[in-house]
């Protein structure tokens, strides 16, 4: 990329080659240099062979900065492909030439006009409105947004595409490889909702997608408007410009939105909305930890490849190569630890979120609620937080609802003279306790109104009126009543609070101490992770295989006609799989079972069969971290508690495959079983 020369009036930046996610930072830095030099931004696009949305976004931000700073902006010699790309994404108008000394109006925001693509007759009978917002990391996750738009185009007719840039920060605050875009799309299509959803399936994890079908009701439009918050005006303009809704219909939607009885968001929706908001704001606390799993998978594959390379380097006697591969392996391990650490969320952000939700709950209950937040630098695994945030919200709501009202002193309206709304103060604090973070949700100089609680519980049939309440029983009753009507396990049974928390290695307790304010105390494991696992028995013990690695299970290998075994491999479905006999790896001395079982697992490109004694079903659990001592074991990555009180170790699939690769021939194809052509069981 050629940098501008010192002549500010003629400086042209020439872009060459492909500009994708990996070069967007380079583009950003070069444009930043132009801004530092206070030169107009003139970019020659004639040699750009490919450009993606991440780089276009950088150009968008640069144009906005030019307008803000009074510098000129122009993109010279755009190629046909580039123009087509801009048109597809509705960004033509957004990257128009800007001359601060010219006659064109210098809008600071994207012009209100929308790129309209009319390829068919104006008779539109099957109009869809697709409103989509992307998470910051969609580019890094490999999300190809233009491909989705292109596919949407092939499903019917793209009538209008309007980019939404309300989340775009100023150029100096922009992170080049993060996405700040959304789109409002009008299309004419006979496709079904499912088909349109499937178009965005590749980016589903990073997408907030709302689809309004041709027969959507006013209520559905109102829901969209509420959920788009600060973009609601832009959405209404879009409806008007594209003709999706006429002015009367838009007014009806507006009226419904402003109606006091219109309560769009369920608790689950509110949580989802918060989770999708920009994390940089500092208010939201939930890291989307699912993405870390794919990063860890990639690292696992990298570590396995390093093991193979070390073996080859050793055989070739290449000392330098061996050193470098060892270094890469070590760096990958460190990176793995860093990514695992990223799965944590800060307690301070959690408290900010709970306080906000608590005040909303207080307004709803007619209680003046305030919070004392004791902030600190503690962090908890994000997945663990996701499991308990509903419980914490319910706990706060409970404290607000059942706290004693403060005695009346000062007359203040609205309401009858001399009466003011009850006041509730809640202290949120946290401290570390070994491998746990202990959260305290405490009423300040207040207590739960036990008589009201008893009465409500009797009415709900939870409490026998003849039973005298003991303080110890109060805690149990509080927890039960707090989860009245909470989500169940899908079989008509309520999941006990203690069971849900125990499943992730935590606990909750309600404490009522005279003079100290009633409180909930929640203990959360700092670095436990919740996993779906498959139990496999070896000897007297059971081990957990993370389900995300599992491809297939074979309950009794001797009965399986599809498998042919030869030493440490098995031929199955036309593929030769190496076997790892867990009995050998785990050094189990007990007698082997008469019929063994096998679980085919996959990590990246590697597939192996894990052979054990028996399968024992599926199990969702919290994997507790191993201390420094046991972390030396390559085959184990965590431990968990079984319902019968025994401990099951969580197998480290990556570690097992690494060990196998390190200890065998790297080229499996030369194994004698393939030459023989026939295997003996």
């Amino acid at each position, binding site marked *: 990329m050629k940098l501008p020369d010192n002549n500010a009036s003629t400086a042209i930046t020439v872009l060459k080659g492909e500009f994708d996610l990996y070069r967007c930072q380079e583009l950003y830095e070069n444009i930043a240099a132009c801004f530092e030099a206070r030169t107009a931004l003139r970019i020659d696009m004639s040699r750009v062979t490919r450009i993606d949305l991440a780089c276009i976004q950088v150009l968008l931000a640069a144009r906005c900065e030019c307008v803000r700073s009074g510098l000129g902006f122009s993109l010279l010699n755009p190629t046909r492909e580039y123009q087509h790309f801009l048109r597809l994404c509705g960004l033509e108008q957004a990257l128009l030439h800007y001359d601060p000394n010219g006659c064109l109006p210098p809008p600071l925001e994207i012009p209100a006009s929308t790129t309209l693509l009319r390829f068919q007759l104006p008779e539109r009978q099957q109009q869809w409105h697709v409103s989509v917002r992307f998470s910051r990391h969609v580019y890094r996750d490999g999300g190809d947004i233009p491909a989705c738009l292109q596919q949407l185009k092939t499903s019917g007719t793209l009538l209008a595409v309007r980019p939404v840039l309300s989340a775009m920060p100023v150029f100096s605050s922009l992170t080049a490889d993060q996405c700040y875009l959304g789109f409002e799309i009008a299309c004419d299509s006979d496709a079904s909702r499912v088909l349109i959803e499937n178009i965005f399936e590749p980016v589903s994890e990073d997408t907030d997608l709302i689809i309004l079908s041709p027969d959507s009701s006013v209520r559905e439009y109102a829901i969209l408007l509420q959920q788009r918050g600060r973009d609601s005006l832009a959405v209404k303009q879009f409806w008007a410009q594209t003709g999706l809704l006429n002015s009367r219909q838009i007014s009806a939607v507006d009226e419904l939105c402003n109606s006091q009885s219109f309560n769009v968001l369920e608790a689950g929706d509110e949580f989802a909305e918060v989770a999708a908001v920009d994390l940089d704001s500092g208010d939201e606390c939930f890291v989307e930890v699912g993405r870390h799993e794919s990063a860890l998978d990639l690292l696992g594959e990298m570590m396995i490849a390093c093991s193979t390379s070390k073996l080859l380097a050793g055989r070739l006697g290449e000392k330098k190569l061996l050193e470098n591969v060892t270094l890469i392996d070590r760096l990958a391990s460190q990176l793995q630890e860093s990514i695992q650490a990223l799965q944590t969320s800060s307690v301070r952000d959690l408290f900010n979120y709970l306080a906000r939700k608590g005040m909303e709950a207080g307004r709803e209950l007619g209680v003046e609620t305030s919070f004392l937040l004791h902030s600190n630098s503690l962090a908890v695994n994000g997945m663990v937080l996701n499991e308990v945030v509903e419980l914490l919200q319910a706990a706060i709501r409970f404290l607000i609802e059942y706290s004693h009202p403060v005695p009346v002193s000062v007359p203040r309206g609205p309401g009858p003279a001399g009466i003011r709304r009850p006041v509730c103060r809640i202290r949120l604090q946290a401290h570390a306790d070994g491998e746990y973070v202990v959260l305290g949700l405490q009423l300040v100089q207040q207590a739960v109104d036990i008589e009201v609680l008893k009465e409500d519980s009797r009415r709900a049939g939870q409490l026998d009126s003849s039973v005298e309440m003991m303080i110890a029983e109060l805690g149990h009753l509080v927890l039960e009543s707090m989860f009245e009507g909470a989500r169940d396990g899908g079989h008509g049974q309520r999941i006990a609070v203690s069971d849900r928390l125990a499943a992730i290695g935590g606990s909750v307790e309600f404490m009522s101490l005279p003079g100290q304010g009633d409180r909930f105390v929640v203990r959360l494991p700092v670095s436990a992770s919740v996993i779906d696992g498959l139990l496999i028995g070896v000897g007297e013990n059971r081990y957990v295989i993370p389900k995300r690695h599992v491809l297939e299970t074979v309950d009794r290998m001797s009965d399986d006609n599809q498998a042919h075994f030869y030493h440490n491999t098995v031929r199955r479905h036309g593929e030769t799989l190496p076997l790892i006999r867990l009995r050998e790896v785990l050094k189990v001395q007990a007698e082997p079972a008469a019929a063994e079982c096998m679980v085919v697992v996959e990590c990246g490109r590697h597939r192996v069969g894990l052979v054990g004694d028996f399968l024992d079903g599926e199990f969702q659990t919290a994997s507790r971290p191993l*201390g420094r*001592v046991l972390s030396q074991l390559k085959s184990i990555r965590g431990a968990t*508690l079984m319902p*019968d009180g*025994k*401990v099951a170790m969580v197998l480290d699939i990556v570690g097992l495959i690494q060990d196998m690769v390190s200890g065998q021939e790297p080229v499996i194809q030369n194994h004698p079983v393939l030459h023989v052509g026939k295997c003996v069981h």
Partner: protein
Amino acid sequence: MIADEMPELDSEYLPGLCGRYLVATVSGEKFALDSESVSEIIECVNMTELPMAGPVVRGVVSVRSELALVIDLAARLGRGRSGSAGEQARIILLDAQQTGEWPLLGLFVESVDSVLQLDSVLSAQCSRGDVREGDPCIAGISVSDSTVVNLLNLSKVLDSAELTQLVVR
């Protein structure tokens, strides 16, 4: 000549080590732990063995929903791994301040005998010429009812760096 080769036991008294100790039997010998460091004593039930971790790690056990790593004290002291858990075998759970890693850490012993007040503790070091020798895991020795009791140096026994090296990779 033989007398010259015999190590000479130090006769140094260690008054700072006097106090109450829990005495347990390991490989036929008596070992004492500072009673302040003992959290509780439990039976060996539902222990998940970890044979791949080597002889020093006896296994892991659940204690009121907490996980405890159980160290075979005989193996740790170099006496070879204890045999299978008999009726009298116990796990001594140690105070969290002693462990610093897992929520709980326990020591597997063949039996727990008694709590004794030891008022006279000798150094367990011995000298062979100019060289002082001794097991660093033993802080001192005492005699109670004609029985020699070895006082454990728990910080050395539970040193995580050493335990880590003893765990089979």
